[in-house]
């Protein structure tokens, strides 16, 4: 019984890994098409039908380019930088629940999630934060002032925006009472997504996610107008490709996390109705599996929307100036995030927690918070 379950879990891990890579690959194509459409153009349409083989052509191009090492560069770190960026980006999708469970006839139950940990959100946070090391190491090892400036910017930006992001998340955790992404999704099964409870928190989280993934309007680490290419100025061939790829994987992970945390993950409106109707006609097992599959489709729809949203914003907004970036992070988002925590706490005190179970568990803690606030 144990071994098949493990094998199934391994299969899910492989599938998640593959899907992450596939989506990142086609994000590059989607980005070009979205950019083109927003600018009244049609985008790549030469390679294959609708240009669908374009990512393949890009990969061939990147692989056949010269592997360039700048003089005076630290060769080992120069290679290690893009590897680290890619690895950390890929690790983050491991804890994202892409669906509920599939139950087979013999009672085997598999989660559509690579690994389920009760600190899921912290894990994503930690791993994504590590990604900035890839950029820093790459920028520093390049022995180029532009690269170094880009790397320093990336580091400063990550530190500034992770604070506000974490604060926005604390408010959400006060509502949900758990760090497990799966638990958070299951709590949203009642149809009320967390965006209802945390609209301000979502906006802060979203802005910070843009900064974390180094996307416009926060793409100062690779700001072409000022820094040539930023941290990847000296990179060529597939090492450059790994950096670009890592960015798209980060976008995918950020989209997945946003849809899981604030937009109900794999829950969709009317799932109880679907479940009840199918249970009556086809039985519980079938109903459960159908709802799970529909949920997986739902979360991917949500993720694709957010990926589109990332691109939509990128081709709408100009880049911030560096001082504007810092001012926005420290004097606007950070205080607002703290305010959000206070308001959330007050709301939980006055109206009670979302889940009566959490309410009961939170009781002693909330009274403590009240005394602290008053003191």
């Amino acid at each position, binding site marked *: 019984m144990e071994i098949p379950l493990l094998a199934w879990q391994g299969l899910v891990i492989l599938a998640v890994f593959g899907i992450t890579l596939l989506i990142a690959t086609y994000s590059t194509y989607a980005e070009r098409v979205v950019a083109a*459409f927003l600018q009244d153009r049609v985008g790549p349409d030469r390679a294959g039908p609708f240009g669908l083989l374009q990512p393949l052509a890009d990969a061939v191009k990147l692989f056949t380019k010269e592997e360039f090492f700048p003089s005076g560069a630290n060769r080992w770190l120069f290679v290690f930088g893009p590897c680290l960026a890619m690895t950390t980006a890929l690790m983050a999708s491991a804890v994202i629940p892409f669906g509920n469970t599939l139950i087979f006839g013999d009672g085997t139950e598999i989660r559509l999630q690579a690994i389920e940990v009760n600190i899921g959100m912290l894990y994503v946070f930690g791993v994504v934060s590590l990604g900035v090391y890839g950029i820093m190491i790459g920028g520093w090892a390049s022995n180029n002032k532009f690269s170094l400036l880009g790397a320093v910017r990336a580091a400063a930006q990550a530190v500034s925006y992770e604070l506000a992001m974490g604060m926005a998340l604390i408010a959400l955790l006060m509502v949900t009472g758990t760090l497990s992404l799966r638990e958070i999704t299951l709590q949203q099964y009642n149809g009320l997504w967390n965006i209802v409870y945390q609209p301000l928190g979502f906006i802060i989280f979203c802005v910070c996610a843009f900064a974390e993934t180094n996307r416009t309007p926060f793409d100062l680490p690779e700001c072409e107008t000022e820094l040539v290419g930023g941290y990847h100025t000296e990179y060529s061939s597939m090492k450059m490709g790994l950096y670009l790829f890592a960015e798209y994987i980060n976008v995918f992970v950020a989209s997945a996390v946003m849809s899981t945390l604030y937009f109900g993950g794999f829950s969709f409106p009317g799932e109880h109705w679907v479940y009840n109707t199918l249970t009556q006609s086809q039985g519980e097992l079938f109903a459960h599996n159908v709802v799970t599959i529909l949920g997986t489709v739902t979360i991917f729809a949500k993720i694709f929307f957010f990926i589109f949203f990332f691109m939509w914003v990128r081709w709408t907004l100009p880049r911030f100036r560096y001082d504007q970036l810092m001012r926005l992070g420290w004097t606007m988002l950070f205080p607002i995030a703290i305010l959000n925590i206070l308001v959330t706490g007050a709301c939980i005190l006055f109206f009670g927690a979302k889940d009566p179970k959490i309410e009961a568990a939170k009781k002693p803690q909330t009274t403590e918070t009240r005394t602290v606030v008053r003191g």
Partner: protein
Amino acid sequence: MQLTNRSKHLEKKPMTLAERAYLPAILTGMGITLKHFFSKKATIRYPEELRPMSPTFRGLHVLKRDEVGRERCTACGLCAVACPAEAITMVAGERKKGEEGLYREEKYAVSYEINMLRCIFCGLCEEACPKAAIYLQADKMAPPRFERDEFTYGKDRLVEPVDPSARSKRGIQLTPEQAEALARRMAGME
């Protein structure tokens, strides 16, 4: 110092809360870009799709045949003289006995070459021709090629096919009457 009375006095108002929050402006901008997402695209996918061209567009040259399929060109050289880019070269020859079905006049062009890299497609050759033999087609352009010498078009590529159905559809197809009228007009102008 006021130089004109057209200057406008601008009042610098402090930004409202909505303006400082920046988000309403972002949403407006995203609305604009989304509108463009669904708008008609300006791109013309060139080899498959062609830009609509004027019926009087001056494209690739063609050496016309008359109504019974004889070459109209008599190698008078007026087109070469008229050509401001000096793109046209020709060698004249005398029509032999038995070639009456091939050439309309007693003198014909043994070789006729236009260098498409020199040609500026002004259409002066067309205007100069007294025999209404050379025309610039409205629907054909000199296509891109890899070698320079491939741009020197000889008679093999300039003279229109004998079979009328294989000829250009949108090119200027004059009826014999129109062609005669045109030739008369040309002769009168000179």
